[in-house]
């Protein structure tokens, strides 16, 4: 059991393993699509008036066109690439500032760890979305991935901190201390075991969390900016037209939901669980 394992009573283990495999396979597929995005997409991002405005899906434009006559297939692919890029960076920040920092903080001497635990504990009383928006507002929207990662980290920090404390008082730790093993070596050993056992799940959990935060932040207008639109901003831009032209919001929304779904499945998250 890692610090990030979920509760008992979930789906049967074989089903859970199958779902996690589907999640990783889906993420792999998205990575391939994103890396080949410039080849698959017929047009560069922001190419307007390539077709009639608000044209429904057809043979020529498989996902239709938007208000400015942009090809929705190309725009969705480019937006997916931007979303994945931003989420990837934010995920690394979330892992470092969350799980890793929480684990290390629990072993800090002179009560520093407890002070950090208190500070981060206060941050968990606010939704991660609000924290991300606050940080972006205090600096600049270009740092959205950094702040999305930091905003997603408090919960992971607290979980990792509590897990590290639990491990610190376990029999193996007491034995190691009694035989003269240094605190640093013990920390290294525990970190290695923890992350080796659950790194992929931790990364997928962080990816799900930051993708939701980044998309919502962009939807509110605090995240990515044109011409590098992400999926959240693309959906926000379709607000005026989507009631009559459903395709302008549906395809970006499906792409976003698939990215989150695969990350959640890979992480083994239960529906409703905070990533």
């Amino acid at each position: 059991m890692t610090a990030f394992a979920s509760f008992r009573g979930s789906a049967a283990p074989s089903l859970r393993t199958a779902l996690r495999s589907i999640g990783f396979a889906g993420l792999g597929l998205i990575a391939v699509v994103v890396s080949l995005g410039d080849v698959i997409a017929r047009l560069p991002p922001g190419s307007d008036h390539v077709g009639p405005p608000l044209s429904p899906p057809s043979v020529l434009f498989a996902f239709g066109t938007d208000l400015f006559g942009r090809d929705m297939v190309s725009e969705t692919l480019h937006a997916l690439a931007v979303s994945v890029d931003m989420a990837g960076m934010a995920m690394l920040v979330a892992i470092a500032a969350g799980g890793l920092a929480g684990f290390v903080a629990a072993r800090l001497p002179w009560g520093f760890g407890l002070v950090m635990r208190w500070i981060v504990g206060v941050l968990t009383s606010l939704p991660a979305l609000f924290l991300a928006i606050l940080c972006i507002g205090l600096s600049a929207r270009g740092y959205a991935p950094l702040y999305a990662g930091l905003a997603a980290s408090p919960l992971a920090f607290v979980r990792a901190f509590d897990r590290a404390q639990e491990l610190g008082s376990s029999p193996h730790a007491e034995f190691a201390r009694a035989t003269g093993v240094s605190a640093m070596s013990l920390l290294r050993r525990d970190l290695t075991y923890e992350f080796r056992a659950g790194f992929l799940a931790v990364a997928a959990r962080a990816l799900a969390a930051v993708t939701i935060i980044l998309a919502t932040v962009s939807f509110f207008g605090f995240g990515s900016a044109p011409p590098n639109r992400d999926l959240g901003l693309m959906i926000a831009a379709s607000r005026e037209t989507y009631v009559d032209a459903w395709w302008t919001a549906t395809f970006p929304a499906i792409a976003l939901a698939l990215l989150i779904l695969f990350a959640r499945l890979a992480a083994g998250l239960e529906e409703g669980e905070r990533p």
Partner: protein
Amino acid sequence: MWLVRQFLKFVLGLLGALILAAAVAAASAHGSHYPREVLVRLFDFAHLNFGTSSISGLPAAALVAHRLPATLELMAAGAIIAFLVGAPLGVLLGRGHALRAAAPLLQLVAAAPVFCAGLGLLWLAARVLHWTYTPQPLPWPALAEGGHNALLALNALSLPGLTVGAAGAAAVQLAVRRAESHAIEEPYRRGLKLMGLNSFEIDRLYLAPQVFAGMLAGFGEIVLALFSAAAVAEWLFGWPGAAVLFLKSVALHDWNVTALVLLAFASVSLLADFSGVVAARAMGGVDAS
């Protein structure tokens, strides 16, 4: 002793939220010494002076006090839906292998971000139900009046309430399932069966209170989910609440208002967490520590 420890945790949380709010409010002081400014804001907060809005010039406290009830009303409507839908769903999904195996399929629904769900509801209302949504502030008093006003109020609450409720239901059913999965493995169930009680009686008399207590223990987490969803619903449906005030104040760098909204939200969340854990403990529930 346990209660004192929980209360201390709650008070320390509030203190942290106060410091965080002071740090945010101090961002509006350009050019002055920042740590000193944070202390000045803390001193002001202690004297219930929360400053004025840099946009409207009105006292920040009055602005937030005017908007907060609308958010709490929306969250209350969402919470009702969340508990009505989420609790039975959690109980059902926690039972039996078939239903438990079906639970991950709900991931398909859970993967849609709240704003996508809200947009979907708006689309359904406009295109399928041919129904015009009209936002209306503070609808609960109108609900009590009855008649035409109550219908208008219901119309105003419906879509934002459903959006918040859907997000809350996911959190509630998870809390219920988590509590049920713990309670169902308790050894006393086997003993009670040997004593001749049937499963229904055991569930009604022993399991249900434990599950309810477990749900209460996760109340803080449910409130956080409701807050996030309220921000999206207020933005999407033009609901005049404090969450959308937060978004606008951040966009306009109105830091006094931002700080006070954050303080209010953190206080509500900490209070929900504290009261939920205490209530769960009072009921003898699981994991209330």
